[in-house]
């Protein structure tokens, strides 16, 4: 057996063994089964929640919030980032504000966002958009600033309008960095949506995790955690696909 195959086997066997150990430990009560339910029990609960439609409902609502907030954050981040990167006056006006507020942990803004946008859907979109917009701005600016000068020279030599400099040179030139920013933002979005739904929501995966914990339905909580992981993996895969489609020239 060569090393590659061994690695492949290990990557399947190790998690399986861990699950098995967990199952055994939980059933024999080596670990506290009230907090660490057996995987088989969690799976049973998973099937029940799937059939009742409860799981799908929470997942879809979280997905919708992420999608809307992420889109708002990405689009405005790209527009602001291009402007900051290309227009010195805009950079002078906005860069200090962006740099000063960027380090604030976005979860800490949740109370404020709820005061401003209320307990409804808008506050969920807003907190995700805020988390996303910074990372996308910073990556877009850096993408624009690192565009090879030759491409800007070509644009100037052919007297491309400012709009065309945006759409035909700066945007595609910065796209690899923009998509890298979107990938990091996706992780941040998941953190933010789960936090926001735990704090102030009546639906969503974060709500599911937090309320089931509070009423001690531990299996349901694990199902929620599992769904959060699945959601994260799917969204990451989606962005990987987007990257391949949008920047074919970077493909190796």
């Amino acid at each position, binding site marked *: 057996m060569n090393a590659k195959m061994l690695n492949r086997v290990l990557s399947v066997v190790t998690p399986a063994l861990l699950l098995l150990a967990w199952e055994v430990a939980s059933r024999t009560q080596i670990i506290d089964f009230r907090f660490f339910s057996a995987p088989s029990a969690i799976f049973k609960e998973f099937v029940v929640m799937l059939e009742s439609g409860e799981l799908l409902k929470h997942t879809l609502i979280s997905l919708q919030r992420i999608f809307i907030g992420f889109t708002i954050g990405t689009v405005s981040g790209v527009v602001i980032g291009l402007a900051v990167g290309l227009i010195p006056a805009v950079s002078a006006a906005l860069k200090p504000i962006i740099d000063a507020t960027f380090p604030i942990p976005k979860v800490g803004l949740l109370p404020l966002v709820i005061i401003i946008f209320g307990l409804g859907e808008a506050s969920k979109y807003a907190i995700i958009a805020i988390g996303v917009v910074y990372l996308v701005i910073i990556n877009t600016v850096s993408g624009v600033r690192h565009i090879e000068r*030759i*491409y800007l*020279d*070509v*644009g*100037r*030599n*052919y*007297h*491309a*309008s400012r709009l*065309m400099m945006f759409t*035909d*040179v700066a945007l*595609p*030139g910065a*796209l690899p960095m923009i998509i890298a920013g979107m990938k990091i933002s996706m992780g941040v979005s998941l953190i933010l949506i789960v936090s926001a739904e735990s704090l102030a929501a009546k639906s969503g995966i974060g709500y599911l995790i937090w309320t089931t914990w509070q009423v001690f339905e531990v299996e349901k909580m694990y199902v929620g955690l599992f769904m959060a992981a699945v959601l994260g993996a799917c969204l990451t895969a989606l962005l990987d696909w987007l990257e391949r489609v949008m*920047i*074919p*020239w970077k*493909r190796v």
Partner: protein
Amino acid sequence: MVEPKLRLRDLNRRFMLRDRAVDALAGISLDVAPGEFLSIVGPSGCGKTTMLRIVAGLETATSGTVEIMREPGSTRPLNAMVFQQESVFPWKNVRDNAAFGLKARGFGKRERYEMVQPILDKVGLRGFEDALPHQLSGGMKQRVAIARAFANDPEIMLMDEPFAALDEQTKLILQAELLRIWEESRKTVMYVTHSIDEAITLSDRVLVMSARPGRVKEIIDIKSAFPRPRDIAAVKSSPKYGEFFGRIWSLLRDEVMAASLVSA
């Protein structure tokens, strides 16, 4: 003499490197006639690219004037540059790269695609219109850059060592193609090259520049010895070719040595 297409008068360019002044160009005066193919040779770092960039409006002269004469009523762009480095946009396919200047001038999609097609055909890119640059060879990418410049139909073409990065065979093929396209269009061309051979075979006149700061050392008339249209092979086998080569080389040799002394 007819009115020149391009008139440079006492062009100077000084760069500041930290607190040290570097004179790239010192007092360049030059007339280029309409339809003339002028090559520029000179040691590395003597300011050839700087001169072209100033003519292109990408760089400003420290002092001196640049005038590009337009035919009355003409709306053609003043210049188009083919750069020393690879300059085609990796995110645009061949057709859109070639049509970039036309798009900037406001031509609609249908119109500009129609306008670039004959030029793409001429530079041998037919069938590759939808390819992205990373799917092309280095020679094909340079063809795209040349097509982009010709498609814009400028008053004057500025070419900065367009074939320098190519292998010898590809270079020979592209030289012949360039000559053919140029002979059809008779554009005014300023062509920077390191190759004396290229300068002789392509040009009407060859401008030899001095080591930095760049000055006009001598301008050598080739056209009267090799009229157009030209056959590259015939030019190269002519005894006059050897004379020109020897003369340009001896002018350059002094300057290249001066340049290497300066930088040593």
